[in-house]
């Protein structure tokens, strides 16, 4: 099989998540492939719109559920094009690519998921994987968003605000722009919804740093603040995982676009990542 060739997949459903993001539910035309296809949370696929181009997108559904789902933001030429596509249309998918989060290694531990904006997409895969398998002691989700309209998977988030504790999961939400809907949410869940930034959500939460892993995904500026917060709590750099983004063409370590680092340490985000530990960031310049 040519590694650059994608597998046709049908769009089963398109759902508006926000004015900018849509959720695409996809199923491969090849039934065997639907059976075979599996991945780790944190991995991504390359979406192919033949004749227009390809772009990398994280798998946002958990591997415990099928069909697969992708949350795609309208960011430019190609993503605008796919936003116009409808149920029944066919796109190409190749992958999964990248290393993903080390889910087996983290079994039995606490997971602290820290998501900013679109960073919610790959972490949703972790969240539902953890809930579905029940292999993790407790899961925190700290989710920072701009405004009420920008909350990705809003129904799920509100559902987990209400019923999360029964599933071993604490969801907390920070928003920046005030609105009646946010104030209403804040009244309902005063201990878990607040106006502020994602690091504000750490307040009042205790977790045993020797039994916890932090998984971060968000805009580049967020990493510094979140990592400082975690290090202040004495979480080991080896327990801090983050997923990173770079321009990608091939996804398989050939095209050179995602290469970062210096003469002592060079990494391919597509193959060595996109998930890295904070140790990796300390030893590879330009990673974050």
């Amino acid at each position: 099989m040519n590694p650059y060739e994608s597998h046709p997949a049908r769009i089963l459903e398109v759902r508006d998540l926000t004015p900018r993001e849509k959720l695409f539910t996809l199923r491969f035309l090849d039934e065997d492939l639907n059976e075979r296809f599996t991945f780790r949370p944190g991995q991504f696929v390359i979406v192919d719109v033949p004749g227009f181009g390809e772009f990398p997108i994280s798998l946002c559904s958990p591997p415990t559920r099928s069909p697969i789902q992708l949350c795609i933001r309208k960011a430019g030429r190609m993503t605008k094009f796919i936003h116009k596509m409808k149920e029944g249309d066919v796109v190409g998918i190749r992958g999964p690519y990248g290393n993903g989060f080390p889910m087996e290694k983290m079994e039995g531990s606490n997971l602290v998921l820290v998501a900013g904006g679109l960073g919610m997409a790959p972490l949703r895969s972790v969240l539902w994987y953890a809930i579905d398998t029940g292999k993790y002691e407790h899961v925190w989700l700290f989710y920072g968003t701009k405004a009420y309209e920008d909350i990705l998977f809003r129904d799920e988030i509100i559902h987990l605000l209400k019923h999360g504790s029964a599933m071993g999961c604490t969801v907390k939400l920070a928003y920046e722009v005030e609105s009646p809907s946010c104030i209403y949410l804040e009244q309902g869940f005063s201990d878990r919804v607040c106006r502020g930034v994602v690091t504000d959500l750490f307040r009042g939460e205790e977790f045993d740093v020797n039994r916890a892993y932090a998984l971060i995904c968000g805009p580049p500026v967020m990493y510094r603040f979140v990592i400082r917060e975690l290090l202040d709590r004495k979480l080991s750099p080896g327990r801090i995982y983050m997923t990173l983004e770079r321009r990608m063409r091939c996804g398989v370590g050939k095209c050179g676009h995602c290469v970062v680092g210096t003469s002592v340490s060079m990494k391919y985000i597509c193959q060595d990542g996109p998930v890295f530990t904070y140790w990796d960031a300390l030893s590879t310049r330009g990673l974050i």
Partner: protein
Amino acid sequence: MRYIKLPSENFGKFFKSLEAWGSVYAPVKRGGIYSFQEVHDPAEIALDYNRTMLPPKKFFFRPKEAILRLKNGHWEENLEAEPTVLFGLHSCDIHGLKILDRVYLDEPADPYYKSRREKTLVIGISCMPDEYCFCKSLGTHFAMDGFDLFLHELPDGWLVRIGSVRGHEIVWENGELFEEVTDEDLANFKEFEERRANSFQKELPQEGLADMLDLAYNSPVWKKYADICLACGNCNMVCPTCRCYEVCDRWVDAYSAVRERRYDSCFMENHGLVAGGHNFRPTRLDRFRHRYYCKSYFDPSSGYNCVGCGRCDEFCPAKIEHVKVLDEIRGSLE
């Protein structure tokens, strides 16, 4: 390794015999510049060339090529490798191919590169360094593998090293053209290699190179050179180990499209650009430094990503010299 001798008077016949294998490409001189071109008459070959402008990578990883064709809604791959003979590669370029191999043959292998590599016979030839060469300091001035045959110049012919089964086959099929190697030939071979080793004018001290560069991340020398660099990307195009590519879909007519890839350069501003306009290497300084880091990265399995061929120096319009930049960076630390 097996060594045999090709006497001068048999060179022409040997060269013609290669046509049985495939189209033969060899260095020729055109308008002051050497390049690999299809050759039918051995007299056309510039046997004593210094370096071609584009390295042999162009045979395996094309400047521009269609990788997939969209027909009736389906992708078809565009594999069309022809049997080819690359005659007259210098040792540094053979090392350059080995570095590309590590990238393109690593799983999942690039099918285009792989099929061309498999269908191409590589014949090396010895050379004398000019003022740009610094392969000796990188250990790429002699190839131990990565070729089928390697021809070393002797006063009355060529000492041939056989590097592969295919190389053996060619020698076997043309047995009457070759002779056994004599002690005198070996002495001549040794003398040539010694003379060559002493002819290098440029040296890249590689001791601690990778660490030194990393420590000098903020050295003002980067800025000094980034300011005179034109960001033309020539150095990337001519480098035997640069292999970044960009991909673009193009409609041929209303029903068919091609997915093309072409050489890309890390000097281009959009190389590190992602959605929303964020750029991970926003300044020319970032991009200039990145290229040096990439070239000086040391991989335990294949060495540096630079083989010291001197192309980037010879073809840089701003006359920036690779070794000089690295020397000054080192100097700025002391």
